[in-house]
């Protein structure tokens, strides 16, 4: 465990992980109940990464997320109710029901959005980092992406931009060993973080199930970035508990063994951290139970709130597209 961590923060990190776990557990239920359209990619199992990294950030720092974005958004302070409202496609949702899971964002909190395209957020984070650097602001930009994204060219281009311009960016590669059904070992040789090294940036591997370890690594990366030391790359080894997306539960996939899943669950990030909190006398078992109840309430209230929100009016369907202030633009689908 991180030595420097104040107890209050250590507890908050547990609660934050719990919120993500319970949120996405609920999401699976709601998808099965047909209350959420489209596809959701659950974050359960990877909580230590989002929370470890985001605990090192302020509201002014920004992040770009992935298709598996609920965890990042919650860890950065996203509101449970507004998130459910978005997943339900309501107008009170973060994206006013336009984006859903794969675009969920709170720009005011520096959450620049989930992204349906693997790797696409990396250069976007660099651009925001340039703004911070050019304006002399001490903020940083974090780009989350999966192990699969390491083979997407734009991620490399982005790492190079960050390196040559010494941008305050942290590339966080969440290595959960699979991209959909494709095992990492079949599509890469060597360790992922070695790729980043070749651009001339600090690059390390951390235990992505240990929120303290992730936090420590993130904190030094953030400090490096804030003090003009340029970008860093964190490879966080972790695991996803559910399938690639909610729907996978009802399919017969064979790319992972139950044994492998069980092995990883033995190092569950929440259990590990709870144990350490208790061992370090930062929490009692009762505190943990209380946090669980609190988070369960928060989730239940969020769902409740979201269910009560109105859906957007189809008349406004063209709203928010560019050029809406010009006649006939955007073109409707039928004669106008």
């Amino acid at each position, binding site marked *: 465990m991180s030595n420097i961590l104040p107890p209050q923060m250590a507890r908050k990190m547990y609660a934050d992980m719990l919120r993500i776990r319970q949120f996405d557990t609920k999401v699976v239920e709601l998808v099965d109940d047909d209350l959420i359209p*489209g596809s959701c990619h659950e974050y359960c199992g990877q909580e230590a990464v989002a929370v470890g990294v985001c605990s090192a950030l302020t509201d002014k720092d920004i992040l770009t997320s992935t298709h598996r974005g609920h965890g990042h958004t919650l860890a950065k302070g996203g509101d449970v109710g507004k998130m459910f409202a978005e997943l339900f496609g309501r107008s009170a949702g973060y994206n006013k029901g336009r984006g*859903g899971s794969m675009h969920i964002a709170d720009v005011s909190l520096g959450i620049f959005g989930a992204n*349906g395209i693997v790797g696409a957020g990396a250069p976007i984070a660099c651009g925001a980092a340039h703004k911070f650097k050019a304006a002399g602001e001490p903020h940083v930009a974090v780009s989350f992406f999966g192990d699969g994204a390491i083979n997407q060219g734009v991620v490399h281009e982005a790492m190079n931009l960050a390196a040559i311009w010494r941008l305050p960016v942290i590339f966080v590669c969440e290595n959960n060993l699979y991209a959909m059904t494709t095992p990492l070992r079949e*599509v890469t040789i060597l360790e992922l973080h070695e790729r980043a090294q070749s651009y001339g940036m600090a690059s390390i591997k951390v235990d992505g199930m240990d929120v303290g370890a992730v936090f420590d690594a993130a904190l030094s990366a953030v400090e490096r970035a804030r003090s003009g030391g340029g970008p860093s790359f964190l490879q966080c080894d972790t695991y996803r508990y559910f399938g690639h997306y909610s729907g996978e539960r009802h399919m017969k996939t064979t790319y992972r063994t139950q044994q492998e899943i069980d092995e990883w669950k033995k190092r569950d990030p929440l259990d590990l951290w709870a144990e350490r909190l208790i061992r370090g006398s930062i929490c009692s078992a009762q505190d943990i139970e209380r946090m669980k109840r609190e988070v369960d309430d928060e989730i239940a209230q969020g769902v409740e709130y979201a269910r009560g929100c109105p859906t957007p009016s*189809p008349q406004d*369907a063209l709203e928010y*597209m560019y050029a809406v202030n010009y006649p006939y633009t955007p073109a409707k*689908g039928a004669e106008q």
Partner: protein
Amino acid sequence: MRQLRFLQAMNEAYRQVMAQDESVMILGEDIRGGIRGETKGLHAAYGDDRVLDTPISEAAFTGFATGAALAGLRPIVQFQVPSLIYVAFDQLVNQAAKMRLMLGGQADLPVTYTIMVSGTRGGNAGQHSDNPYPYLVHAGFKVVCPSTAYDAKGLMIQAIREQDPVVFIASAMSLPQKGEVPEDIYTVPLGKGQVRRPGTDVTVVAVGHLVPEALAVADSLFEKRGISVEVWDPRTLLPFDRDGLLESVRKTGRVVIYDDTNRSCGYASEISAILGEHAFSYLVAPIKRITRADIPLPYNPDLEAAVLPSPKQLEQAICSAWSYSKS
């Protein structure tokens, strides 16, 4: 005759062509696992060298197919979702689409690109739901967009056998559709449209998965109002069966184009422009386009429905074309 789903028809086409021709290979993301079903069994039957699971590197694997084709293979490139063509766009429109001409005909380029779940709906939101064939037609690719399981198999086999790059649009809404599919190998020729329902009053050009919708609207309008609608399915978007369409329009003089892509510079625009040039003398009503609105699909299902082409809009357009008389 035996019924198969569109997806199964694709699978059968892949299997039969691969069995017949050793130079055919397939590559893309999560092909071996074959979650959706169209690639099921291929890896077991044809092995590592002919069935490749790729990293998430669409630009590279698209270029890879170009090189493999130049070296003598006949690759099929699968795009798991339609928007993946955008990261591979240079390798598609600026390399493969131009290769043969730039080489002065030194080599053919027999590559098939399958665009899975094209134009998907149901809350996949803006980045996954495009139906991007107008980009590919503009770039000069041969593009097929089958609307039936029968055509899916026949056009796929023909696509793979062509000496040129061919894009196969596997519309999300078509994949579960069932239809009669012969067990033997057969082909459907490129560049030949088909009258799906004969009629005399109004021609509806319906593309891909909108064909069944158009047929339903046509039937109901005939019942309700006695309007005789001819539904015409281009099947191949490029080369386009202009003569087939003109024959229909010569009869009806009235046209509605029903197409599930963005409107501006979309496929319906092209069809309309062809008619504006070549059917002017027998058109008796404005050419109507019923298309997607020019926005990325919003997530909320009601909003989504509001920007998609709908049977109701089609019906209105048919009625208005039918009742139009020059003032």
